């Protein structure tokens, strides 16, 4: 199916110049997607790969007609969508099964909605249940099933409708490694079956290997706001072998793109780093220390895909740590290789008190939000400010959830470095004495901006 010649391929879903923004709390807008154009063709498997916050799920939902793009339009077979996409079925990360319906009733639900007569409904549902390996479970309720079996029900419910496009939103990320490998293989074998009614599969994932295993084409999404960073065709024959050198090359390439410098992101465009353009990566100080320790143990250099494999981490777990380490200057990344910097080495080998002091300096110098907080506290009357002050500031660039997250990370880092303290009850940040000794550094910062 994948060998169709490009010129004769019919476009199923065309998204043109899509951007999506949400109004934020103080009236300004949050940009989730920025000018994205994608076409999904007949006969291909497309993976949308990105870190969390790259808007990949939002993009998929605009394809499905569940979310309206702010500008631009999505067409299905040439018709502009104004509601749920009639040619799409979706498999959800959380399965999204009705807990009060049996397996069979869940699978039949879409047919019932389509007004299919009872007899035919039963027949088709049983067929789909059989095809996906669920026979014997027809009368079971979802709660009685394991995660893997629940996702099979999710697949059966989608496939029974014989959709043009099968959309999958991180369908395997809630499952354990073996179960997801098994389901992926079954999906590939279904896709390769002649006469399989579904013409296109679009999968959202943050797992690089999964993207390389399944897709004919990987669209790499960058964050802040979401945009397409790269389009990587995967021309490996199926079934694909994880250990083949070509497979590894593809994985390394995607790693390099994901960890590389992103020219289009707001961070790169902004003149000076600020808390709104340079969000703090979601990493705890403990996690950072762990990463640096491992790279140190590897002799100061580590291959990121290997590292992820070794720790059975996925990109979403590892990349924020790598990003944070890079932000603070503890690591440098070339392609898919991470190197320990001199600063990183010094930080790791210092004693606890010294390492805290070093961390404080690094955070104030390199973490924009930490710097902003310290500066604001320094300039305030009594060295104390309400957390709402910073919340309001962050809300101009983040949604409510991310605002809290950013604040939490900054507080975690600041507390560890003993830069400031946080009293949760009145919600007040108080400058500590350590920060006062860093005032010269702050002065430099003022000169910069």
């Amino acid at each position, binding site marked *: 199916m994948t060998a169709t010649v490009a010129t004769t391929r019919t476009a199923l879903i065309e998204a043109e110049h899509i951007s999506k923004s949400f109004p934020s709390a103080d009236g300004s807008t949050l940009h989730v997607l920025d000018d994205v154009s994608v076409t999904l063709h007949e006969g291909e498997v497309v993976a949308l790969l990105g870190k969390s916050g790259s808007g990949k799920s939002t993009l998929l*939902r605009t394809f*499905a*007609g*569940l*979310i*309206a793009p702010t500008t631009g339009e999505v067409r299905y077979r040439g018709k502009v*969508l*104004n*509601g*749920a*996409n*009639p040619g*799409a*079925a*979706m498999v*959800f*990360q*959380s*399965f*999204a*099964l*009705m*807990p*009060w*319906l049996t397996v069979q009733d869940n699978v039949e*639900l*879409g047919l*019932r*909605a*389509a*007004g299919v007569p*009872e007899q035919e409904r039963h027949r088709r549902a049983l067929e789909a249940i059989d*095809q*996906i*390996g*669920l*026979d*014997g*479970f027809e*009368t*079971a*309720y979802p*709660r009685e099933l394991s995660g893997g*079996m629940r996702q099979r029900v999710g697949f059966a*419910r989608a496939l029974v*409708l014989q959709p043009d496009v099968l959309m999958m939103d991180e369908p395997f990320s809630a499952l354990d490694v073996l179960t997801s490998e*098994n389901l992926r*293989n*079954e999906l590939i*074998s*279904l896709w390769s079956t002649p006469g399989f009614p579904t013409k296109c599969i679009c999968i959202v994932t943050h797992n690089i290997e999964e993207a390389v295993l399944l897709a004919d084409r990987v669209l790499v999404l960058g964050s802040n706001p979401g945009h397409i960073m790269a389009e990587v065709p995967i021309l490996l024959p199926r079934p694909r072998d994880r250990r083949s050198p070509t497979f590894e090359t593809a994985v390394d390439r995607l790693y390099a793109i994901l960890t590389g410098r992103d020219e289009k992101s707001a961070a790169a465009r902004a003149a000076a780093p600020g808390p709104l353009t340079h969000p703090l990566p979601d990493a705890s100080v403990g996690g950072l220390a762990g990463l640096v320790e491992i790279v140190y143990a590897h002799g100061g250099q580590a291959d990121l895909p290997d590292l992820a494999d070794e720790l059975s981490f996925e990109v979403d777990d590892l990349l924020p740590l790598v990003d944070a380490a890079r932000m603070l200057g503890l690591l440098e990344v070339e392609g898919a290789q991470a190197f320990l910097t001199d600063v990183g080495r010094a930080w790791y080998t210092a004693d606890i008190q010294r390492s805290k002091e070093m961390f404080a300096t690094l955070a104030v110098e390199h973490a924009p939000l930490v710097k902003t907080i310290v500066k604001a506290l320094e300039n305030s009357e009594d060295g104390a400010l309400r957390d709402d002050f910073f919340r309001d500031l962050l809300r101009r660039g983040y949604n409510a959830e991310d605002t809290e997250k950013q604040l939490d990370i900054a507080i975690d880092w600041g507390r560890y470095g003993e830069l400031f303290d946080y009293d949760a*009850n009145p919600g007040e940040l108080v400058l500590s004495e350590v920060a006062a000794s860093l005032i010269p550094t702050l002065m430099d910062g003022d000169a910069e901006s």
Partner: protein
Amino acid sequence: MASLRPGTFTNHDASLRARSHFAADAIVLVAVAVIFWLLIQLSHGISEPFNRVSAPSTVSTDPANLPYYAARSLLRMFAALAVSTIFTFIYATAAARLRRAEKILLPLLDVLQSVPILGFLSITLSIWLTLFPGTELGVECASVFAIFTSQAWNMTFAFYQSLITQPRDLDEAARLLRLTKWQRFWQLDVPNGMIPLIWNGMMSFGGGWFFLIASEVISVNNHVYALPGIGAYVAAASRQQEIGRLLLAILVMIVMVVGVNFVFWRPLTAWAERFRTGDTEAVEQQHSVVLDLVRRSVVPAMVARVLRPVGAGLDWATRPLGRADRPLRVNQARRRAGDIAFLVIVLALIALGLARMLGYISDHTGLAQFGVAAGLGLITFARVVVLLIVSTAIWVPIGVWIGLSPKVTRFAQPIVQVLASFPANFLFPFITMALIATGISLNIGGIFLMALGAQWYILFNVIAGASAIPNDLREAATNLRLNRRQKWRYLYGPAIFASWVTGGITAAGGAWNASIVAEVVSYGDTTLTASGLGAYIAQSTAEGDFAKTLVGVTVMSIFVVGLNRFFWRRLYSYAERRFSLT
């Protein structure tokens, strides 16, 4: 695909269910038949000819009539529950799905929740009497309506909450599967809201008994209407000073409360467990003998077979209503214009209504009555405050003691549940008797009368809060050798604070409502009156002074809503923020 096929799955539960018991079938069928016969018998009484002037103002206190009265009362309760459920479905769905309607329906619901229902009884009675002239149905409807107003708001709010907090993925799945509106309602909305709906229904039903008792004898415009029912029986026995019969009625009442719980709510809550979403487990598994019995019989399967074509027909008939999806593109300009027009019309109507109402009041009693009512409101407010303080001092330690011991909780929880739903106004004659005998003023005794019903909410919630304290925290407290005072200061107090606030809101609301029946009480020929807003409303209702009733009810609503807004809600969000255990 065939590589890894799961083994055969045997569902033991299902095979047991299939084997039905003859005894179970027989019992269920007989029960259904008896219920039908009872309904026919009771509906006979309701359609009896009725004359506004010669309508009975009392009922016989012959104990032989008591079962019939009890059945009539029960029928009223269930009629109100049915109406409440339908109302809930329509109102909550409209509030959750219609953007503009939500702007009105939600604040309205918020106010209706806190309005003293009993004050409206007289107003609605005249409407119902006009609607159904010549039969007892009018008075009957007024009573059912009073119960309905005590049940509906809570249920509606719970269902609305479940609608707007629906899991996002289920909503998306429903839209992508292209369910029709009707299908979505029954396959997603109702099942998803079933547990909160049933639990709130049960709570509201318990509260409804109070209003049933209060609404079976309605005195309006210097005329008293009595409906055959257990509440009217108690009123009559109280007037004739028949203590033995009063006690008998209390016994019947307890049997009814426990019985309804056993054959209706218990099976329903156990059945509703299947609607639990996700992997969350109930804290305590619900079991019901009645549900097991029904499940063993073939009756549910038979009923399902009969109803299936009906369901399919409705499914087909409601197809034209359209799919449960929303358009992605909206005309912003037109929407904004519609919003503005809507807002203007609504505000104009409200302003007009307000002007008319104030005009009416100033014509009939004068606007100065607002001041009088507000002054009396302060007195009743003082009673509510005393009530809360005393109930807290008594029930918080007891509640914590019960809640901390699982053994005591298991034993005490059902008793407290019965006490909470037992209508406190049943006991009023006894307290009144005591007040008359001791000569204590109702100004003080009224607090006790109001507390009779309200206090249980505090106890109930504190028990729930205390039993939710994690064991490791208690062990840590013991391990740290905290003394009793320190334990209260650092563990029990913070841990139960949020529950206490919840109980406090409900108790205060209940006390305001109860003041309408607690500030004027009588036993035999003696009538005691306290000064307060409740007495003001009760007296103006009895005199048929509609304007004064309106003033009293409005002022009381302002008190309750204002206190909720400025005191309870803030306290609650503080408790949530600061003392949440999760």
